[in-house]
């Protein structure tokens, strides 16, 4: 029995309406998609044995593995999978957390018990990724709902899936979720008999629990505790490159936006942007603020996506160089005034530097940036803003100059690339920079349909180049994923950016004799 501690419960076990990462951790253990991401970032078959797309680029044929059973012992049929995907296609607003994965699907059928066929409206490049999140849910549990509200109020705490673990009990109030090993799992059952997930409401108690052995694994170790945990006897601390990054957003909202953006127009000057980028010491941010738990960042596609396949390695980082930054501003005609702040006679280089209060690291980053900017004659007025108010000021209002914020991209680059498209700068959209480049928008559509992987890679690289050079975002650093486990009790974890508690890793774990 492996006892894992975390600080949040899954919000639900119903994939139609699940927003917390903890829910997806559990989905990965109890459900299966047709495919799944493996620790090296490539997609492998889960329910699917193989898959291929026809020459028309829109007809996908997927063969299932043999001997797949639901947790209640019934056989899984291809028609069950077709039903589950059709349910999402039919009512995208009911399936609010999965509907994006079925966007552009035209028809899903099951020609026989072991074959699924998907026809799409246009070529879909990231099909494998999408199929990994379209979980096979047990149709009899899901075919009785008549409205979005009914479906979404269904918590599915007694979920029936096909995954390597099955639900024993989930008591959300008490914060305890118990999974039993599914010994009939089609890829071979787990070596551990049970997984327990327990919610702790504060991180200190969680760490104490690992120390005294109440729990065996922590899914997310706070950065401040990482060094302490390393010194515990019988505990192994794991540090992996993560997916999250943090960036400095520079207001790039179109002048024609409605409402008109409120900002110091000097923020649009490419010379100012380059000077700002040159005045940021990313290594220092990582060393001082993050105590080394991170790595300097450059593009919006972190090196961990797709095992590194999507990250553009050719981008030349802007060197931290105060003298060079000063020269750029000198050459652009910005002269220091009596108070040391530069101006070109029209615009004074004084900007708001805001950040949401949600992240305890941001105030210190803001202070470091402001003191660097001061050395190049740029005045930054640092201000902490409540997260909701900042969201409202940013999208689609454009009332800001510079903002520190972060993203946790999906495994596929599509989502993080979409964040910088013009379409997303609307109420409820994800764009915060207001970046609006017709060329970028077109490339975004192109990469969605580029079935050929290396062709898509080229487009994705080009898009990273554009964002890097236009600087709606200056990516500051990539976060690390910190986990820890009792190595005196368990062994065999697979360490990867996906975490040591994914199904593929837990299937490999054995108790120390």
């Amino acid at each position, binding site marked *: 029995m492996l*006892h894992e501690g975390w600080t949040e419960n899954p*919000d*639900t076990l119903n994939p139609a*309406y699940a*927003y*917390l*990462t903890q829910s997806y951790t559990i989905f990965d253990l109890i459900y299966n998609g047709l495919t799944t991401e493996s620790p090296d970032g490539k997609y492998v078959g889960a329910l699917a044995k193989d898959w291929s797309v026809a020459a028309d680029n829109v007809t996908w044929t997927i063969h299932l593995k043999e001997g797949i059973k639901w947790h209640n012992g019934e056989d899984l049929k291809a028609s069950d999978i077709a039903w589950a995907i059709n349910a999402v296609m039919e009512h*995208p*607003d009911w399936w*609010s*957390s999965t*509907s*994006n994965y079925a966007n552009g699907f035209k028809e899903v059928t099951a020609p026989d018990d072991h074959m699924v066929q998907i026809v799409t409206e246009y070529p879909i490049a990231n099909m494998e990724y999408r199929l990994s999140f379209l979980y096979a849910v047990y149709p009899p549990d899901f075919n009785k709902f008549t409205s*979005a*509200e009914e479906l*979404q*109020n269904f*918590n599915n705490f007694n979920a029936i899936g096909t995954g390597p673990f099955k639900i024993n*009990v989930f*008591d*959300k*109030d*008490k*914060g*305890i979720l*118990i999974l039993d090993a599914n010994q009939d799992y089609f890829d071979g059952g787990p070596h551990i008999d049970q997984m*327990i997930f*327990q*919610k*702790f*409401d*504060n991180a*200190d*108690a*969680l760490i*104490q*629990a690992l*120390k*005294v052995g*109440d*729990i065996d694994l922590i899914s997310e170790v706070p950065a401040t505790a990482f060094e302490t945990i390393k010194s515990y006897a019988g505990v192994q601390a794991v540090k992996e490159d993560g997916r999250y990054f943090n960036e400095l957003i520079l207001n790039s909202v179109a002048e024609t936006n409605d409402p008109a953006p409120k900002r110091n127009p000097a923020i649009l000057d490419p010379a100012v942007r380059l000077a700002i980028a040159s005045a940021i010491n990313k290594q220092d941010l990582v060393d001082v603020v993050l105590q080394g738990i991170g790595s300097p960042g450059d593009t919006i596609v972190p090196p961990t996506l797709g095992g590194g396949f999507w990250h553009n390695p050719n981008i030349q980082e802007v060197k931290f160089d105060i003298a060079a930054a000063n020269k750029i501003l000198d050459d652009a005609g910005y002269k220091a005034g009596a108070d040391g702040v530069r101006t070109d006679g029209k615009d004074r280089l004084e900007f708001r530097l805001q950040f949401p209060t949600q992240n305890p690291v941001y105030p210190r980053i803001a202070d470091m940036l402001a003191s660097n900017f001061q050395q190049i004659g740029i005045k930054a007025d640092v201000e902490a803003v*409540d*997260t*909701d*108010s900042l*969201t*409202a000021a940013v999208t689609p209002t454009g009332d800001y100059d510079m903002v520190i914020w972060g*993203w*946790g991209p*999906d495994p596929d680059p599509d*989502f993080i690339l979409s964040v910088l498209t013009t379409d997303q700068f*609307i*109420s*409820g*959209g994800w764009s915060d920079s207001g970046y609006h480049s017709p060329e970028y928008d077109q490339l975004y559509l192109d990469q969605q349909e580029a079935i050929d992987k290396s062709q898509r890679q080229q487009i994705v690289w080009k898009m990273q180049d554009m964002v890097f050079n236009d600087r709606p975002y200056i990516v500051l650093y990539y976060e690390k994923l910190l986990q820890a486990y009792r190595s005196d009790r368990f062994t065999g974890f697979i360490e990867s950016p996906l975490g040591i508690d994914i199904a593929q890793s837990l299937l490999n774990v054995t108790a120390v004799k």
Partner: protein
Amino acid sequence: MSRRDYLLRKLGFSLMTVVIVLVINFVLFRILPGDPVRAVIGRNVRISPEVQQALRVQFGLDKPVFPDQFLDTVGQWARGNLGISWSLRRPVKDILLAKLVNTVILIGLGQIFAIVLGVVLGLLAGWKRKSAVDVSALTFSLIAWAVPTFWLGIILLAAGSSWLGLPTGGIVSPANVSKPLYAVLPDLGRHLILPTLTLTILYLGEYMLIMRSSILEVLGEDYILTAKAKGMSQWQVLMRHGLKNAMLPIVTLIALNLGFTVSGAIYIETVFSYDGLGKLFQDALTKQDYPLLQGAFLLLAVSVILANMSADVLYTYLDPRVKAN
């Protein structure tokens, strides 16, 4: 005024207060900045604007706050329905009831220990003023009252789990999670030791200090001198004339504390991952879950009002002056 009239009038005022609280709650949460749909779904998901809009419609947020949302809410309340939590997707009433029981167990135990120990210590300290008992009780109480809740909780958690093998969190062990609480009392008890101890220490000081000053004041009264002059023993004077009169401020304090501790155990519940109302309030607020927030604050208001009412009722028994007026 008869006691009945007095109580009826108090009851009337209480009901009025509840109604005002309901209205204020409705307004208060809606003037907070931000978008509840975004708060519920978080930032790192791929929810299209259309789907967000669908959720907004489902929650009734597409309609104007007044009169539509207000009338909807009032209509639900009138039918005794507190609505369904947006973030937890369960009826608010069920959630609150489940957590209330747990919080009452914790608060109840903690308060009982704190009251009994606090009153006894205060009485002793006041009675034996300037003795070693007084000085040490006073020092201890001042420290206990001043110590930050969170800090004390963490210290006790670390010490208790390392040296005594007490649980680091939760209300029962995972193995007992499917059983009803009454069937696993020893396990529940083990989980309650540290949070109860923390709560007791924190409130003990307050009760002791109030009791001490109150008894000192009473012991200086003329009727105490009279009682002594009648030849009663010190113990009789203290119990029959001192304690009853000195209890009045304590009753007020207990009533206030009981009302507020329904929410006030937030820190202790958070430190010990105890499944109670405190953490629920915090979650509801960060997720801008209006139905849950409204339900939670209604419960809070009602418990404060109830506690105050019971203090009023108790006063009519303890203090003859209340009856006379």
